[in-house]
């Protein structure tokens, strides 16, 4: 049996099965909080702890699945290319909005982490959380954060934005459809876009465009912000 766990087949198999189980629960309950990625993650962690299997052993198979993150990141250019006409006449406000919003998020993380006395390494891992996981994973690596923590924060940003979006718009008095779409994509990447698409086509298209634009802006903004605060 232990020979089986050591083979990549084990990691690949439980990842796919756990994901489909998570997807099934998500479709039955129709609740964003029951996110398939989070359910699958929790199930696999529980299984590994119970069977006393190290992450490295599981990851022999897991890394085969993770490999596809890189080509998937490259093809994120496609939704951006398809929707780039939406930027026409609005690109100044959209770019300034995304940059200001992303910066406000970084400042919030920095201030609250200092207030609660959170370790810098955890704080740095949180900085890329609004970008899509493909970007946040690599970004966390290049700024000296912990990639595995970064993807968890990314999932939290996605789920909380998906659930809270409409309340946030009321609170900040955001009524314009384009602004709503940009907000979803910038703060909550793919999971925000899923909600934006439910609200309307304009919101969905702008949200998916903003995922990539916000990701590219963050790649430059986060290292700059870190040099300003001196870490």
């Amino acid at each position, binding site marked *: 049996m232990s020979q089986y766990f050591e083979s990549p087949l084990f990691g690949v198999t439980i990842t796919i099965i756990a994901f489909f189980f998570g997807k099934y629960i998500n479709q039955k309950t129709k609740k964003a909080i029951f996110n398939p*990625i989070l359910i699958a993650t929790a199930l696999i962690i529980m299984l590994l702890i119970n069977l006393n299997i190290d992450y490295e052993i599981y990851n022999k198979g897991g890394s085969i699945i993770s490999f596809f993150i890189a080509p*998937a990141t490259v093809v994120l250019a496609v939704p951006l290319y398809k929707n780039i006409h939406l930027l026409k006449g609005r690109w100044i406000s959209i770019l300034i909005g995304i940059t200001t919003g992303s910066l406000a998020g970084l400042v919030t993380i920095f201030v609250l982490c200092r207030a609660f006395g959170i370790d810098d390494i955890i704080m740095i891992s949180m900085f890329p959380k609004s970008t899509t996981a493909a970007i946040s994973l690599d970004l966390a690596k290049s700024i000296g954060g912990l990639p595995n923590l970064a993807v968890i924060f990314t999932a939290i940003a996605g789920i909380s934005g998906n659930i809270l979006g409409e309340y946030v718009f009321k609170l900040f008095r955001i009524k314009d459809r384009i602004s709503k779409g940009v907000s979803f994509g910038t703060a*909550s990447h793919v999971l925000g876009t899923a909600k934006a698409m439910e609200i309307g086509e304009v919101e969905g298209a702008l949200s998916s465009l903003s995922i990539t634009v916000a990701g590219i802006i963050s790649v430059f903004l986060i290292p700059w912000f870190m040099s300003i605060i001196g870490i």
Partner: protein
Amino acid sequence: MKTLRQLSIVLLILSVGQILQTKFNLFIPGTILGMMILLILLLTKIIKLKWIENITNVLLDHISIFFVPANVGVMVYLSQIKDVWAQILFIAIVSTVVVMGVTGAVVQLIDRLMARSRKEGNA
């Protein structure tokens, strides 16, 4: 074979991105460079959308599952975050709300200002 042929195009672009990143020691991840290269190739019509459309759909339809193993990696840090998990969850949610609210409010505000100045310019 079509999907495989399309995958080879994407992997080739990705490789160029990765090589550029290591060769010039850039702070931009190689995957993002690859994405920018693909966008430029599409905009300049050097690459046609249909050459990569199949593989794009396959990869983006399954993107969620690709992150599960990386998420599981959090178990390595469980002991490191077990005393502060409530605080960091709070910070992550609050900052997400801030990003959302500020982004939308700024886009809306600038659009209104620009519309007003256009109107005044016409009058």
